[in-house]
């Protein structure tokens, strides 16, 4: 493959990444807030696990929407 073609493919890929994959806006998270969208079944157990994980890993969030909130996590 020529270098120019490779560059063009890269540009195309970059374009795809910016345009089509955008995270849902705060007001579009209705589906994500459903209980079925969580990783586990037991909310209390999940919270406990996340508490441990966030203290050990110094990071939090990424476990669903948790019933709205300010969106700061």
């Amino acid at each position, binding site marked *: 493959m*020529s270098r*120019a*073609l490779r*560059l*063009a493919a890269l*540009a*195309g890929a*970059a*374009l795809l990444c*910016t*345009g089509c994959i*955008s995270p849902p*806006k*705060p*007001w*579009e*998270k*209705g*589906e994500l*807030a*459903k209980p079925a969208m969580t990783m586990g079944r037991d909310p209390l157990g999940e919270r406990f696990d996340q508490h441990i994980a966030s203290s050990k890993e110094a990071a939090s969030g990424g476990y669903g*929407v*948790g*019933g*709205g*909130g*300010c*969106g*700061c996590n």
Partner: protein
Amino acid sequence: MNLHKSKLLPALALAAAAAGTFVPAAHAVGVNQPAPAFSLPREGGGTASLDGLAGHVVYLDFWASWCGPCRQSFPWMNEIQAKYAARGLRVVAVNVDARQSDAEGFLAQIPAQFTVAFDPKGDTPRLYQLKGMPTSFLINPDGMVLAVHQSFHEEDRKALEASIEAALDAHPEARP
């Protein structure tokens, strides 16, 4: 296939320009900015519009049935609407549920004694560039934003009510 350099550069420029158009209009509506106009169908029929509320101090809230803090804010919004209506406050709560039936289920559980409008397409929250749910805007009688508040906790009541009081004190001309 042989793509010449002279053809590649414009192609790259075009790609960059196209990518630029996907970047959302960055800034959220903030304090001292005009509140964007909207006109939406309201609960019980008719339309709710910001223009129609000119002359009132408006507490504009964005909520959804799936949002936990919104559930807490409704009783409080009922309270402030009753308490400050005579001084010119109007509470308007814009629902952003994709399915209006979800919103109606919520309202059956927690009835609202203020204006509820429906925006299932999310045009209004996009206009206001919300950063989280719920978000509320306090708007003066001339349509300028006085305060923005994100989320809702029971302990926020006092501060929110103080900012509403201050707005009403500053605008004694607000129509009741």
